[in-house]
C-alpha cells in the first residue's frame, strides 16, 4: 500500500473544483489512484477531474494514461456505472497508452451524481 502525503499545490482543491463544475450544471467525473505497484508517477489518492466540456484538472499519472482515463470517464458521465481501471506493463492496453515506467496502477472512475 503506497503512502499518500496529503500535499497539493497551493490553492489546488480538485474536489472544490469538481463541486463547482457540478453546481454550474455540468456532468463531472472523478478519477482516483487507488493502488500502485512498482514505480508509478503519482501516489495513491491522486485525482483527475473532467467534465462534459472536457475541462481537465489534476493527474493520475505523469500523463501517460490520462487519455484512456478520460475516455472511460466520458462513458461514465454518459450513464455507465463507476469502473475500476487497471494499467500495467503486463497489460496490452497499458503499452498502447504508454505506461512504460514499469509499474501497475489502478484508477477508480466515478461520476459526481
Amino acid at each position, binding site marked *: 500500500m503506497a*503512502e499518500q502525503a496529503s500535499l497539493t499545490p497551493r490553492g489546488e482543491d480538485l474536489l472544490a473544483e*469538481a463541486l463547482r463544475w457540478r453546481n454550474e450544471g455540468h456532468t463531472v467525473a472523478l478519477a482516483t489512484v487507488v*493502488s500502485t505497484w512498482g514505480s508509478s508517477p503519482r501516489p*495513491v489518492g491522486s485525482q483527475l477531474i473532467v467534465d462534459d466540456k472536457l475541462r481537465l484538472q489534476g493527474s493520475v499519472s505523469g500523463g501517460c494514461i490520462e487519455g484512456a482515463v478520460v475516455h472511460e470517464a466520458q462513458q461514465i458521465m454518459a450513464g455507465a456505472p463507476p469502473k*475500476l481501471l487497471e494499467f500495467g506493463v503486463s497489460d496490452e492496453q497499458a503499452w498502447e497508452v504508454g505506461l512504460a515506467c514499469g509499474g501497475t496502477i489502478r484508477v*477508480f472512475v466515478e461520476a459526481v451524481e
Partner: protein
Amino acid sequence: MKRALLEALQTARAEKRPTALVTDLTGGRQALMIAGTHQGDLALSDDLRAAVEEAIRADRSGPLAADENLFVHVHNPPLRLIVVGAVHISQALVPMAQLAGYEVLVVDPRKAWANAERFPDVALVDGWPDEALRNLDPDHRSAVVVLTHDPKLDDPALGVALASPAFYIGALGSKKTHGKRLERLREAEVDDSALARIHGPIGLAIGAKSPAEISIAILAQMTQALHGAPPLVRAVPPDPGAVAAQ
C-alpha cells in the same frame, strides 16, 4: 459519488477535521467517516470502521488490508510548518512551503519584521516564541524551523519544539553557531537525544546561498524527514589518478 457526500467531505476539510472517504470498488458505494461518525450508502462493520480510523491516524490512503475492495481515501488537514522568525529567508520559505501544501504560520514578536507588508499571505503569530509555540501545540504532522539567529528567540522556541512530536525541527546557523546553541541548550538541561533531533545547520548541504536557495534546502530536508528517506549520498567521481594507476 453523491453530491451531498462530496459537499459533506468539503465541509469537513474546510473545518480541518480528519476524514476518510471509503469506496467499495466493486460497485461505487461510499461511506464518509468524520470523527467516528459515518454517512453514505456503504455499511461498515465495527472492525472495518476501526481499520479506517487507523488509516486516518497513520495518514495513509489505500485499499484496506481486511477487504481489498474497500479503498480508503484519507483527507487529513494540511501538514503545518511553524516558522520562528519573520526574517528574509522566511519571506522565500513561506510561499514555497505553501506551494508544497503546508499550512504555514510565522511566529515573531517583532512588529518591524512580522507585518502584513512583508508577509501578506500568511498567518502571523504575535508573542514570545515559546509561549506562541506552546499554544500552537506542534503535533507529529508539524515541522518547526527557527530562523531568527537570535538566541533569545530561537532557544526558547527550540525548547518547546523538542518537547513536541514534530516530525522536523531545524535551526539556522553555521556549525559554530549551532555548536554554541547546543552548549546553551545542554546547560538548560535539554538531553542529548532531544538535541540530536535538531537539524542544524539547517537544510540539505546543496551549497545554498540566497534566501530562496536556503528555503529549497530546508524544504528538501523537511520532505526527506517526512517520508523517512535515507540521507542523500553524494556520488564520488572516480579519482583520475587511481584509474590511471590500474
